[in-house]
């Protein structure tokens, strides 16, 4: 088992690396073709604006290899925060921009009277059973930092939602081997660790 954290210059991936290390997994932070091909699992981290992140991804990651691994070879991939958002077809941060189109839907600013960004610990309500939630309580708290949310076209892609102010947004998405979480498991202590473990151990 070898986890590759996709390296496209997204900033600090220290906590994520340390969490994988704490769980005892072999991992590498890389954007090299051979590492992506040789990996068992991929993680797409993300901090920043949708358009900026997409630009960096397309500039630094061998896209054909990534898409072949994910779509043809069905390698499990987990997008985190903006890394989850760019799985969509389009994002509307700083204008309309194309995403990776791996899970159909769009990313828009949360339409709420509550203050943005939504920062802090909030619970997820599980809508559909998944290996990702193994050993987890029905309502578990994760750490969020975001102003935009994922609106999937297919409701079946929604695994969990979260309430903020007067709104409920999608906090976990999945289409087959492609998964995304709006929160930061690497900042969510034990329950975050559990989610990462479930991704690596059970979602293959």
């Amino acid at each position: 088992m070898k986890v590759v954290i996709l390296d496209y210059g997204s900033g600090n991936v220290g906590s994520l690396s340390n969490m994988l290390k704490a769980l005892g997994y072999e991992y590498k932070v890389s954007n090299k073709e051979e590492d992506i091909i040789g990996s068992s699992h991929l993680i797409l981290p993300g901090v920043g604006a949708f358009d900026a992140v997409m630009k960096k991804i397309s500039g630094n990651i061998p896209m054909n290899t990534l898409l072949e691994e994910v779509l043809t070879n069905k390698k499990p991939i987990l997008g985190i925060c903006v890394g989850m958002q760019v799985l969509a077809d389009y994002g509307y941060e700083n204008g309309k921009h194309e995403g990776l189109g791996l899970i159909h839907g769009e990313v828009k600013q949360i339409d709420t009277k509550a203050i943005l960004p939504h920062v802090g610990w909030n619970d997820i309500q599980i809508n559909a059973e998944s290996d990702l939630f193994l050993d987890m309580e029905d309502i578990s708290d994760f750490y969020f930092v975001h102003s935009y949310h994922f609106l999937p076209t297919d409701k079946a892609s929604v695994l969990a939602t979260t309430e903020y102010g007067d709104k409920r947004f999608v906090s976990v998405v999945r289409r087959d081997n492609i998964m995304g979480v709006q929160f930061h498991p690497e900042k969510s202590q034990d329950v975050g660790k559990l989610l990462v473990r479930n991704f690596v151990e059970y979602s293959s």
Partner: protein
Amino acid sequence: MKKKRLIPIVLLRNGWIVQSVSFKEYKNLGNPVFSVKRLSEWCSDELIYLDITQDGAKYDMRRDDIHMMNHSSISEIIENVSNSAFMPLCFGGGIRNIADIEERLRSGADKVSVNRALYKDPEFVKQAAKEFGSQCIIGSVDYVGEGENAKVFNVQTRSATDLNLIDFCKHVEDLGIGEILLNSVERDGLKTGFDIEQIDRISKLVRIPVIACGGCGNWEHLAEVFNKTDADAVAAANIFQHVDQSTYLAKEHLFQQGHNVRKPDFVEL
């Protein structure tokens, strides 16, 4: 629903964790990294690390004899801390320009807190909030005095400024920062409870989250803040360093009273 937070503050002085009384006396408590790992395991929601080392002083603990790690810089400390704590980390102290913030974020910080820059260099604070996002910048506001006449306190000169606390809080919110860490200097280390009246006033005045600090002597003091004010978080320093499983017990106290906090759990993996 978004949870209210419990935040231990760790004070760092010349490479040591210290206890502070009224911002004047400091007692060394130990290694900056071990204590943080414990606090993380004990269900803290977040951690604020304040470096109160005076300018020019060394971070080295000068204790090679006891085989403790010697830290040469704040970045190294941040790196070590972030290696052992899987939760949001805020670092404050000595932040004067954009490069200072970049350095801390690169080392593993999620947020930084600014104090004197709030009145000495508001343009920088504004720029920082714009560049890194409001969620990244906490405004740490120390004050003395009571009620509507309370004044902002300057830690460096150890004296009150002319700035009215209430106007100042409104002003720093407009700079674009994400949170206010409101700290009563006179209650620091006294364990007599929080300044409920002031916390209530400020947390109703501003839209951004207020973190209440100063005076915590027991878990009920924390509950009182959530019972009587709109504060988004409670913070304390000294008390969390002295009790085994401190933040866990504090969290349990709040949870059992029905406060909207994260359930205290130890999950073994």
